[in-house]
């Protein structure tokens, strides 16, 4: 399936839950409403035509202070899906606001999402509802804040031992 057909199929099945789509630089992308995310992801995995059996990457973007996106939702959680059987890809995005940065978990669909979601929680502070083990992945438990957020001070250090420089 080529990318346009994938997006067309998603639109046909999910209707208004697809907020917008684009294929910039040949990367076909669908922005999904958060409420419809579990349905969209299971459709992507289980639909015979789509068959996205691999979650290649799950990450997030902080759009605070991003030109043109100042008053939009602050975070975007990004899913990169790949189908081994069909050799095609799609990118799913979901937008969440800062004061409600919660996204349904994808762990039941792709177990690999477990560590990805822990990393996104660790770095961006986006919580994943229903995650079986919602701890930090990279930073230590004593760490305060989320270092890849744009408002995390660039020179703030939180050493466990040694001088606080």
């Amino acid at each position, binding site marked *: 399936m080529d990318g346009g057909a994938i997006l067309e199929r998603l639109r046909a099945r999910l209707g208004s839950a697809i907020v917008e789509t684009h294929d910039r630089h040949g990367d076909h992308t669908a922005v999904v409403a958060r409420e419809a995310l579990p349905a969209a992801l299971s459709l992507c995995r289980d639909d015979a035509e789509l068959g996205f059996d691999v979650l290649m990457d799950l990450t997030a973007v902080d759009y605070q202070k991003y030109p043109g996106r100042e008053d939009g939702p602050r975070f975007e959680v990004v899913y990169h899906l790949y189908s081994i059987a069909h050799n095609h890809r799609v990118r799913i995005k979901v937008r969440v606001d800062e004061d409600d940065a919660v996204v349904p978990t994808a762990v039941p669909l792709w177990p690999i999402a477990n560590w990805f979601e822990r990393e996104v929680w660790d770095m961006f502070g986006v919580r994943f509802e229903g995650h079986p083990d919602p701890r930090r992945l*990279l*930073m*230590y438990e004593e760490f305060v804040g989320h*270092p890849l957020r744009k408002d*995390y001070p*660039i*020179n*703030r*250090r*939180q*050493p*466990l*031992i*040694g*001088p606080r*420089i």
Partner: protein
Amino acid sequence: MGVGSFFTSRLDEAIGWARKYSIFQYPFVTACCGMEYMATACSHYDVDRFGAGLPRFSPRQADVLFVVGTISHKMAPVLKRIYDQMTEPKWVVAFGVCTCTGGFYDNYATVMGIDTIIPVDVYIPGCPPRPESVLDGLMKLQDKIAVGAQRY
């Protein structure tokens, strides 16, 4: 020495001479510098020529702590504990710029030089250092060991 001649020396000099050719290192390898460490240890550069050919992977059996690679704040307590577990006399080599100063990292995760946590005897800069500079650092460390110089 011929018959009837005699030999005088100071005991600590003899001990220093023996110690400098029996360096048992603990390689604390965390990052890419480890490749250069391996190159130094292998036959082409052959660190065994300096009596430092046998790494001990237990801190209690090691004399020299080679800190090879970036140390993150999460790893810092582990490094300190390894250092504390080593028996004296002990020396520390900071291998590569990350361990010397933090290198090009200046972020939330990286320790700005391991000398903020543990005392360091020899700094080997480089990203990563060439095996020649490692051997140079090792010989400088041998000079320090020979005269019994230690930092506590």
